[in-house]
């Protein structure tokens, strides 16, 4: 055989360079079909041959779906188009969601030699991201970084917001971005004509088109640098003068803390005072200051920062009083009305879904009485019979509001309740354990503070959180003498946040047992 010198080989047909290959990656229900129709009608109106295909079927029920279009100038005789995109052979990739952009890159539809990538940065979270008890959200930054490497030209902006802002949907803003990217050899007017020919919701679509066009041409306006108050105590709360002066004294104590601790301490203090009152805020600072004393600048006050955060969260626990208080505040009504777009011509009915159990009722009783009932199954059963059922409370009605208002007003009673006592005991035990690790095992103390993150939710979820917390702490005791103890506690905590039932945590604990037992 000859050395394959391609003397008689066919040159590649230069007309092939004229084919434009465009893939649309979308989530079912986003209107990828509408976008495809516009692009197709645009290409035909400009005298191009055009072929579109899509994959119909169940993927269109909220799954990842793909549309594919090829076009070529009209002077070519009967071009043969492919029905599916091929890796490394796509000129324009449009992704209607950030992770779909990632999927386009994974599938090789975005390559640095040829692909213009137009992607919306907004997120539609996949189920797997949402069900994690902790934070399971995928990293958009990672996709952004990959997109920068993978694409020849990159247009990234929140096309969803741009469209929704003008009363339209993302297909229109993406079509605008496609025009603005100048990746197709057609004029803007031709794009707009395609929308008009489509004939549905033309005006709104054109507005979103313009927004998308603008984003592609000029990029997203740089976010105004938020002027975050360096020290949160600058934000003055409203309230009667005597309480204001109490608050001022607390602020002064925060100002006396090491600088790195102040932001978190101010946030924590605000939360605790908002939860109860200034005296309770003072208690918070007492606890915090005790730990700050044991801390050092060499460690950048890591312990104090974590303490400022988690002590506040522990002290502002979620009891019936807090929920009722939050649900009756004027700011809440304003927020919901704004979110729902309630104008002067509308009225709004607000129904809260509540389901109290005997535990919550008993938690409201004074400690002694509460304990007695808690330990008496007959009483618990009776209380359950009286109270334990789903309640739909019309919070916009006087009766419903009054009921919650009354409960929210029990704040002054709170410190006498069984629930408060239980929370206090739990808090003290936890802080005692933290203090026990100081000063020698600083890392352990920090990690134990962080474990507070595991306690959240209400009723069963709360109980499950508590049991995970206890499990992680018992694991912590097994590794407390080890050099890498803190890392193990962190690992146990992360495992506990992975799934609901704590399967990962149990696995991690087994590992710990295997080398400590």
């Amino acid at each position, binding site marked *: 055989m000859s050395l*394959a010198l391609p003397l008689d080989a*066919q*040159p590649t*047909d230069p007309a*092939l360079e004229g084919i434009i290959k465009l893939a649309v990656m979308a989530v079912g*229900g986003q209107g990828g079909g509408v976008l495809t129709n516009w692009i197709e009608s645009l290409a035909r109106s400009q005298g191009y041959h055009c*072929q*579109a295909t899509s*994959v*119909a*079927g*169940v*993927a269109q*029920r*909220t*799954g990842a779906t793909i549309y594919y279009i090829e076009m070529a100038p009209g002077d*070519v005789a*009967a071009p*043969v188009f*492919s*029905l*599916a995109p*091929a*890796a490394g*052979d796509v000129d324009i990739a449009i992704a209607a969601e950030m992770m*779909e952009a*990632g999927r386009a*890159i994974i599938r090789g539809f975005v*390559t640095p030699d040829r692909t213009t990538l137009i992607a919306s940065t907004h997120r539609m*979270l996949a*189920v*797997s991201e*949402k069900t994690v008890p902790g*934070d399971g959200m995928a990293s958009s930054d*990672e996709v952004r970084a*990959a997109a920068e490497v993978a694409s020849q030209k990159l247009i990234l902006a929140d096309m969803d917001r741009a469209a*929704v802002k003008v009363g339209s949907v993302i297909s229109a803003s993406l079509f605008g971005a496609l025009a603005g990217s100048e990746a197709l050899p057609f004029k803007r007017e031709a794009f707009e004509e395609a929308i008009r020919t489509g004939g549905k919701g033309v005006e709104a679509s054109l507005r979103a088109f313009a927004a998308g066009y603008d984003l592609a041409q000029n990029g997203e306006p740089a976010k105004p640098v938020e002027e975050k108050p360096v020290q949160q105590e600058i934000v003055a*709360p409203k309230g009667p003068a005597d309480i204001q002066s109490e608050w001022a004294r607390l602020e002064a104590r925060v100002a006396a803390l090491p600088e790195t601790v102040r932001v978190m301490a101010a946030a924590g203090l605000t939360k605790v005072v908002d939860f109860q009152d200034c005296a309770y805020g003072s208690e918070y600072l007492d606890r915090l200051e005790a730990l700050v004393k044991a801390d050092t600048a060499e460690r950048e006050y890591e312990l104090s920062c974590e303490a400022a955060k988690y002590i*506040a*969260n522990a002290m502002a626990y979620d009891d019936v009083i807090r929920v009722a208080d939050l*649900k009756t*505040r004027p700011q809440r009504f304003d927020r919901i009305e704004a*979110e*729902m777009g*309630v104008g002067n*011509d509308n*009225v*709004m009915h607000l*129904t*809260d*879904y509540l389901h109290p159990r005997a535990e919550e009722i008993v938690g409201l009783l004074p400690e002694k009485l509460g304990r007695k009932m808690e330990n008496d199954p007959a009483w618990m059963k009776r209380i359950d019979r009286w109270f334990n059922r*789903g309640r739909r409370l019309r919070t916009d009605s006087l009766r419903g*509001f009054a009921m919650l*208002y009354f409960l929210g*007003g029990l704040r002054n009673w709170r410190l006498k309740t069984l629930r408060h006592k239980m929370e206090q005991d739990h808090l003290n035990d936890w802080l005692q354990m933290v203090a026990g690790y100081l000063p020698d095992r600083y890392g352990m103390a920090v990690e134990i503070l962080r474990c507070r993150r595991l306690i*959240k*939710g*209400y*009723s*069963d979820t709360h109980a499950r959180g508590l049991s995970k917390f206890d499990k992680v702490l018992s694991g912590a005791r097994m590794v407390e003498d080890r050099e890498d103890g803190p890392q193990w506690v962190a690992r146990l905590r992360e495992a506990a946040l992975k799934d609901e039932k704590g399967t990962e945590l149990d696995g991690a604990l087994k590992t710990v047992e295997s080398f400590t037992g």
Partner: protein
Amino acid sequence: MAERSFKAEVEHLRKGSGDVFTGEGILALTKALLENGVGYVGGYQGAPISHLMDVLADAQDLMGELGVRFEANASEAAAAAMLAASVHYPIRGAVTFKGSVGVNVASDALANLASSGVNGGALVIVGEDYGEGSSIMQERSYGFAMKSQFWLLDPRPNLPSIVKAVGDGFALSEASNTPVMLMVRIRSCHVTGSFETSDNVPPPLSVQDALANPQRDFKRVVLPPMSYAHEHDKIDNRWPAAEKFILDNKLNERFGPESGKVGIMCLGGMYNGVIRALQRLGLADISGNTSVPLYVLNVTYPIVKSDVVDFCKGKEAVLLVEEGQPEFIEQQIGAMLYKEGATTRLEGKGIFPKAGEYTGQIMFDGLEAFVRQYAPDLLPAKVLAPNTPKTELPDLTKSVPIRPPGFCTGCPERPIFASLKLAEQELGPRQITGDIGCHLFACLPPFEIGGSTMGYGLGPASNAAFDGGGEHRAISILGDGGFWHNGLSSSIGNMVFNKSDSVAIIVDNYYSAATGGQDVLSSRAQNSTKSTNHPISKALEGVGVEWIRQIDRTYDVTQMRAAIREALTTDYKGPKVIVASSECMLNRQRREKPLRNKAIADGKRVETPRFGVDQDVCTGDHACIRLSGCPSLSLKKLDDPLRDDPVAHIDQSCVGCGNCGEVADAAILCPSFYEAKVVHNPTVFETWLTGLRKKVISWLQNRRAGKRLTFSGEAL
């Protein structure tokens, strides 16, 4: 009424000679049927030919004018059985369903039809659900053509070729007295393009006219001894007639040079993929003119031996591009060449992977490998020695989450499975089988309910081994589509007859929803051409189910769970069936939204509900999402340094179904959920009352604010 309306497009089906039609493949198919004098059409929906059924349904007026009968058959078996009209009568008939599962269901009728043989052209249009976007097991319909000996067309995926294949199919069917299956792949069904139309032709003999002159011939009945004669007739007469027709009419096509060292044989449906790979290899131009001889099998069964041998003559090697497995055609051609004593090397599987779709990359790699091995001198320099190294891209496979399909926002099936999950949490896990339909999404997270699916309407039947009962009763799911398809007899009848002690939950969403919202017998809509509003519960009573619980609002999770709990714990030993009915939200919104907007514009009083989460009450444990998975129930990261985890958040796409609130209540999750019902055009009294309430409420709020500190946010 189906999810997508083709009323506007259907008007284009009236085009006549000299016009050009531009649109989707399925519309072209319909037009081709009308141009070829079809007398009756039918079928059963399922991707990728659901829209073909929708087009046919929307074209009923036009078909009525032409004297064409349209039947929305009860199942694929019923559709295939309808072709019996072409056995005795010279009437062309066409039915459509999906492959391979639809063909599975239809195979009994198809086998009988193939044995009897046909007089009028009988065409089965099969949407082959294979490869990306498919929702079924990955198999080929090809085997059915082989076993029953009907012919299989697989035209090139462009509109003129598809249209031509319809005419060829009818003619081939009539020339060989054999039914013909016309296969279109997922993307071909929805590929767009143009073709020159011709006039629609009314059937020479309509089905109505045929009834005036009934015909029968016992020789066509599949009974001994005629069935033995049928087998011989297939081999001795019908097959040769088919081969002759294929050759005479050049149904298979050849492209490129007459001869060459190598050649490529491909199935018609693979043609565009092959050309694209050749284009990228520098071996074809933009219009598909190739420098490698190409033999396109638009007829994939039967394979005409003389034609294949002729193409292979003088070639060192040929490559067969046949997607899917088993590689039926490769085996046939291999045997043909061997028996002929040919020296041509046959390549196919090996160069191509045995399993899976031939994607662009696989096609490119396969063809490149073949040409590089047998004719490297054909390849241009830049392909032979590419000099640009590939850029290394970051690996995102670990960070980008999978996004399988799931329940839509507001889906009435979500609360059914939330209830079932709660019941399982209470009573312990159960043996659960699923069925075909949207409800099968419940197998996926967050519900993870149901461990198998054995076929349409077979949910309860696939739990039959457990019908005897035991410590924990088994549960099966069945949709309304599956129920009427064959579930009533195969699943429910089976349960009654065998005194099943298990539980069946029938998901009744008023439509065959997964396939695009076609009506079924129990649909609540009024349909001018179909008989609807036949309640499932009455059918259940009719076959002898005694324990029936009808739930008319699936969103009531507490009630739904109570019904499941009762079914699982009752002392009653016979079959227990829960009918959970609520309308498919996708269809409901499409129906109600325009009416609602109009009512608001007209100044009528309208309530629009939506749900929300109080972000300060939500603790970010996401327990609600694990009982929902609703697209509108998502997460939000708060700008609060004290919070580690994102909180639940309901976006604007919420339709106010109430599942999240109901679940939070039934599972006693948390008090974060609220329903905000905006009243448009409220009555005068309502506005007055609201004003009064607001006054009192803000007086109370101000009173409290006067005694405490108020920070800017609601809670910090």
